[in-house]
Every structure is written in structure tokens, then in C-alpha cells.
């Protein structure tokens, strides 16, 4: 039911973990729906230089988390902010329809982390 890319990111997820003293962090999802994602980012000169994730969730949740970290690493904040859940799903060659809403939260976690960074670093904005 999953694409090869999803299974690749599920089996070998990129950037698992948590950045110590991150520039920003975002957590989305809830236990009721079975997906919780925590994304931590390191920002230098408006650029995301490092990103890590931790996820409780199904195969799609883990694969989207992993994919979003690959997509944003090295990007400036504005470019990163334009990444949507659909961008992530497309980069994984699609997700099963039932997963599009429940387990496709990685971009939301990213936006939450960027938001958190901006809030805690107002001088930079």
C-alpha cells in the first residue's frame, strides 16, 4: 500500500533525534489519532542548518517526518515555510488516500518549529 520511497524513509529514516538547544521546535498531532511529531531546527543566518525529528506514528507518519527533514535542510526560512504537507506527500511519490489527512503532519510540525523560532528570536524578524 505504500510507495517504495515511503518504505525507504520508513526503514532508513533520515535525521532522527532531537537537537540540543534548538533554535526552534514544533510538536503536532495527538495520541487520539495516533500520530505525534516533534521537530527541532537549528537556524543560522535565516537558514535551517540542522533539523531532527521524533515521531510516534504509523509508517506514513515516520516517512513524512523523515522526508520533511531532507527537504528543509539548508533552505532559508521563507523557502522552508512554503513547503506544504502536499509537497511532502508528492516527494514520497504519494500516500494512500486515508493517510493524507491523519498522518501527513510533517509540514505542520515544520511550520510550528519556524513559528517558534520567530517568536523566540524577534530581533531576527
Amino acid at each position: 500500500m505504500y510507495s517504495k520511497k515511503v518504505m525507504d524513509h520508513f526503514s532508513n529514516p533520515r535525521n532522527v533525534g532531537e537537537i540540543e538547544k534548538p533554535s526552534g521546535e514544533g510538536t503536532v498531532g495527538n495520541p487520539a489519532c495516533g500520530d505525534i511529531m516533534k521537530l527541532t531546527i537549528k537556524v543560522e543566518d535565516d537558514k535551517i542548518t540542522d533539523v531532527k525529528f521524533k515521531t510516534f506514528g504509523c509508517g506514513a507518519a515516520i516517512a513524512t517526518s523523515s522526508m520533511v527533514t531532507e527537504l528543509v535542510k539548508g533552505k532559508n526560512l521563507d523557502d522552508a515555510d512554503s513547503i506544504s504537507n502536499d509537497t511532502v506527500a508528492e516527494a514520497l511519490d504519494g500516500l494512500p488516500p486515508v493517510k493524507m489527512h491523519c498522518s501527513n503532519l510533517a509540514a505542520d510540525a515544520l511550520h510550528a518549529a519556524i513559528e517558534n523560532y520567530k517568536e523566540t528570536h524577534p530581533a531576527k524578524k
Partner: protein
Amino acid sequence: MEKIYIDHNATTPLDHEVLDEMLPFLRDDWGNPSSVHWAARGPKAAMDTARERVAALLNCAPLEVVFTATGTEGDNHAIKGVALAKKNKGNHIITTVVEHPAVLNTCKYLEKEGFAVTYLKVDAMGRLDLDELRAAIRPETILISIMYANNETGVIFPIDEIGEIAREKGIVFHTDAVQAVGKIPIDVKTLKVDLLTLSGHKLYGPKGTGALFVRRGVRLVPLMHGGHQERNRRGGTENVAGLVGLGKACEMANESMEENVKHMSGLRDRLEKGIAAKIPDIKINGDVEHRLPNTANISFEYVEGESLLLGLDMMGVAASSGSACTSGSLEPSHVLLAMSLSHEMSHGSVRFSFGKDNTEAEIDYIIEVMPPIVERMRSMSPLYAGAK
């Protein structure tokens, strides 16, 4: 890669002996059993034998066996059939919150049609409170429908005691025994059930076959109006080959019942012990004293079930989960939630259901591959980091 099937509550492989008995009725003996001529004789005789074999497994009369196409059909036939036959007597039905959707959704449909339904709760071990059942009975209660054994946890309900209560009050009692028939001995001669549903593909028979036991004297409105087949209880030309397979599967289950029970419960205990010894923070769900010999339902804290299943699948192991992600809905298992498990623990459950052909070596393989899978998922889980 080794391939291990440990999901027998979902479906069982078709036994090759069963297939061998079926093939002639697909190839050569294709007649309509209702005809009067030579082409009907083989199929007709085979249907009679199949019915006798199903009856022998349940210890009922062959005339009390109505063939169906699925367990879902049997449940629908029993529940709607009684509701319609008794609607002038009352409109109240009692069932439980942990039934299979075939029962739950049939009851929900009847609610829309003006029937009232009481859904009995279960405790943390998945058990019913029979006092709650007694209290739920009203003068207008016409049907009690309670499953024999739960498909997710394997918990067995006290069917005999429930039947006693129903009979005392003159209420028809149906049990969805799809997960129990063939796995544990069932004798309807002594068991106080009026209607009992079974399915062929859960006991090494073919898909598309099932039966409903209808105790003599119980009135049911048919689901399928049509010809005189099944003594006017179910119209439609019979699935002869399939029903021959169902009969053979019942005969085989009957013959090796004791041996299978011992074998499967041995495997289940071996798996549970092995996993408990190697993986911390797990919970075995359900009343372990009263459950099917073949079912183990285990929650792995801090991780989600579908990702565990994918991890197992990559190692060749087929199991299932109470996670929402495997049910196509957003809610995790209604059975585990009804047992007051947290959402996380419900999402993190895996059901292992054993079959007669599983081996100890297969169980040992699972015990070996499971810890690294759980460990990997936990290392990724924000819940685990928070808890440790």
C-alpha cells in the same frame, strides 16, 4: 526470507485436503442441487454430507444448519431476522460494545429503523458484568446478541450463563461465534443459544462460506427472499463447492480439536513469555484466564501498531493491529478503548493469532526479531523520550 503467517483471526489458509474435496464440484459435478435429473445427484448428496459435518461439529441436527456466504451474513440474518419476526412483541435488543462490526453496524441500522439497542460495556480485562445484562432486560427485549469470543483479544464470554438468563426471560439469544467455532469445542445441545453464526474461512475452509445454526422452533424472517433453498430460509443457488469445503473443514476441526487447542495455546504462551522476557513496557490485553487458545493481543508502550506491523512484515511476519491506521479510520480499536486502554496503548497493540500449522521455530523467530523492531520505533518516539 522466512514467511510466517500469524494472523489466523483475519483468515486461515485453505487446507489442501479441503481444496481436494472441493475441486470435483467446480470441474465435473457442476449440477444444480435443486434439479431432479442426474446432474443434481452428486451436488445434492455432497451438500447433505456438508450439512451433516457442520452439524456434527456443533452437535445439532442437520436441519438446524442454514448455509450462508459469510459470517457477516449470518449475523445480519440472525439479528434482522429476529427483529423483523418479533417486532410486534418488542423493539429492544441487547448487545455489547466489543462486537464485530457485522453485529454493531447491523444493530446501528436497526436503531435507525426504530429499534432500541443497549450496548453492554466491558471491564479492563474485556469481561462482561452479567448483572448489567440482567438490569438491561426490559419487557420489550426481543433479542440478545453477544459474541462467543472476541476477534481482537480472544476473550471468551460466558455464553452458557448468558443463555440461561435469556431463556429464563424467554428472549432469543444469538451468538457470533465466528472466532470460536473450530478453535474450541462448542456443543449447542447443551449450550443455551438459539442462533449461532460461523464462517468457513476462519477454520481452514474457503472464503464465501458460512452457516447459521437456527435452533428448531426459532422464527426468523429471511434476509434473502427467493427460491426454496435452505428450506425457504435463504434463496439462491447454493455455492456447492464452497459448502463442500466448509463441511470438510468442520470435519477436520472436529477431529483434531483437542490436539489443536493444546498446540496453539502452547505457541501463544511461548510467544507471550518470550516477548515479556525481552521487551519492557508491554501489556497483554484481555482476560488471560478466559480466552481463545490461539490469540495474543499485546500493547507495546510508546510505539504505534502499524509501524510495528510494517517492521514485522519486512522480516516476513504477518500479524495485525488495533491501530487506527490499519482499520482505515481515525479511531483505534473500539475493543481496546472499551477496555479503558489509553489511545496510545490501543494504537500500540499487535494481535498475534496462531494456527494449527505454526511451529515453535516460527515463534522463536518472532521473539528474536521483535525486540529490535520495538527498540527502533521507541528510539524514534517522542513519547518514549519523555517517559524515560
